[in-house]
């Protein structure tokens, strides 16, 4: 980096770190390695999927595309402080990455004629492969406006391919679609950076070994493959919105990353009720984040939240997405139904004002399309609000008798709450204490312990 600064020939390239911004904000308006790093990261954030998608289409190799894109990012960190930020930073990165791809093909060409042909095609019009990219980029043969959307979509499907482990899908999606750095992903998941890098490397090897084609899946595979994509986005959101471990109750940045991915997907795949449904669910859930934590970071339950703090813009966007999912006319799927439940909460002025009967109906519908003990448990909570704790306890006791949801804090926490409302204090305390023992999140455990303690000692 210091070498780059000394080599600077034009403008403010020699200015030390954090140097004064120069007038104009144009091509030469940023200087210093820090400013360059921020500019590189911002460009990557915005255009990672388009860059990697376009490269993957031309090389037919997502792993190589990601490698050469990373090389281009590294080169930008040296070149931009030295030469100034290019007028079109995305085209610069794409051109540089393409040259690295050509280099790679030429290295492989000796071993494989197939690569020689590809290297020749890609190198068309290039003076020589090692030339530094110019500031002005001619209309790029990689940049086919009619293909960009398809390329991004193919990239998303590839990153979420079923041959990959769930962890690998999440990491690769955040990296190549979300444009996060390994550091950012590591911070979000409380993992060492090397672990994230290893996951991405392994993921790329797995894709190559399985010869996964770079394409939008054919219609027959579409529903299943789309399901995998939606699951990945949903998992990123839930990891952020109810952190499964650690001391933070929510890691909002990670959850908002998922909202952004869902918005991208909603634009790329219009007319799919579950895509719009997932976006609606995430917007309508994230809308409540501002009220979900108290002054000391402790969780605030729905009933106690200050609803004036809910994000009205997010509620509006979520409801609009839900209306689009409904308008498709094929009925709502699991995400859409969960969004409809979230909507009922988001439009209610208070717990008492909430249409609990409607929520019970929605949980019944959800139980039909996606039966699960967790849905039953949530239905029980809604029933307790609509018809009282006794009716709800029957559902919960039935779940307990079927020995489902054992080992999680969810069932005992709900059962404890219902028993408490029925005045069965000793049983309630036992259940809540059990729930606290089973709870992995420190913050949430604190709430359960406090509830148990509030029921007093053995009587």
């Amino acid at each position: 980096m210091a070498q780059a600064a000394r080599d600077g020939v034009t403008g403010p390239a020699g200015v030390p770190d954090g140097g004064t911004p120069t007038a104009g904000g144009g091509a030469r308006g940023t200087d210093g390695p820090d400013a360059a790093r921020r500019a590189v990261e911002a460009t990557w954030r915005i255009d990672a999927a388009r860059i990697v998608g376009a490269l993957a289409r031309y090389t037919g190799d997502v792993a190589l595309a990601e490698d050469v894109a990373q090389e281009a990012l590294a080169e930008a960190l040296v070149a931009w402080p030295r030469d100034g930020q290019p007028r079109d930073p995305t085209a610069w990165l794409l051109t540089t990455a393409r040259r690295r791809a050509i280099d790679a093909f030429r290295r492989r060409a000796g071993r494989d004629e197939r690569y020689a042909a590809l290297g020749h095609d890609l190198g068309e019009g290039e003076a020589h492969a090692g030339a530094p990219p110019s500031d002005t980029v001619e209309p790029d043969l990689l940049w086919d406006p009619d293909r960009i959307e398809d390329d991004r979509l193919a990239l998303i499907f590839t990153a979420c391919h079923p041959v990959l482990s769930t962890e690998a899908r999440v990491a690769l999606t955040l990296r190549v679609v979300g444009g996060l750095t390994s550091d950012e992903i590591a911070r979000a998941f409380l993992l060492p950076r090397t672990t994230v890098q290893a996951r991405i490397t392994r993921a790329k090897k797995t894709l190559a070994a399985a010869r996964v084609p770079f394409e939008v899946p054919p219609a027959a595979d579409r529903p299943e493959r789309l399901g995998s994509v939606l699951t990945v986005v949903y998992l990123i959101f839930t990891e952020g919105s109810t952190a499964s471990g650690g001391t933070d109750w929510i890691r909002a940045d990670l959850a908002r990353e998922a909202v952004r991915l869902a918005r991208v997907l909603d634009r790329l795949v219009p007319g799919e009720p579950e895509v719009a449904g997932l976006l609606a669910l995430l917007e309508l859930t994230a809308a409540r984040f501002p009220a979900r934590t108290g002054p000391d970071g402790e969780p605030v339950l729905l009933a106690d939240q200050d609803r004036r703090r809910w994000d009205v813009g997010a509620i509006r966007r979520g409801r609009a997405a839900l209306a689009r999912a409904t308008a498709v006319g094929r009925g709502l799927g699991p995400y859409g139904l969960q969004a409809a439940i979230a909507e009922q909460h988001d439009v209610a002025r208070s717990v008492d004002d909430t249409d609990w009967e409607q929520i019970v109906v929605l949980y019944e519908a959800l139980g039909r399309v996606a039966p699960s003990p967790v849905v039953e448990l949530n239905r029980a909570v809604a029933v307790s609000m609509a018809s009282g704790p006794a009716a709800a306890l029957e559902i919960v006791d039935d779940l307990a008798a079927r020995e489902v949801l054992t080992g999680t804090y969810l069932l005992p926490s709900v059962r404890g709450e219902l028993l408490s409302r029925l005045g069965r204090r000793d049983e309630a305390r036992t259940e809540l204490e059990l729930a606290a023992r089973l709870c992995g999140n420190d913050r949430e455990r604190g709430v359960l312990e406090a509830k148990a303690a509030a029921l007093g000692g053995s009587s």
Partner: protein
Amino acid sequence: MTKYMLIMRGTDEGQAQYEETDFSEVIAAMGRYNESMMDAGVLTAGEGLADASEGAVVDFSSDTPVVTDGPYGETKELFNGFWILDVASRAEAIEWAKRAPLSGPGTKLEVRRVHGEEDFPADDEWIQKEKEWRKQLGTE
């Protein structure tokens, strides 16, 4: 994610030049720009403002608000519209701003962070009051 507002500012001179441009081209360029931000999942709101001469200014300098028709004072810095973006960083907001299809003397985009929850005390008076009410009502 943080919200940033891109505030479009212009001058009479820039405005005049802008008006000479083919209106359908302006609409198309702006549409493409907005669409690119929609596609990236960052655009959450945005509006363009009608001519400042149609507007009015309410001035609070004196005890009673004074209303004048038209733009505020000299029209060196007209506020012409805004976008609100949900982005990862200030640098990303700036990068989006640089991509706006704007031109003309004095035409500027100001990039400002929108206040988030973290900027306000979580234990403000009204929330404290509500906690008291809950105690009184036995709903805590």
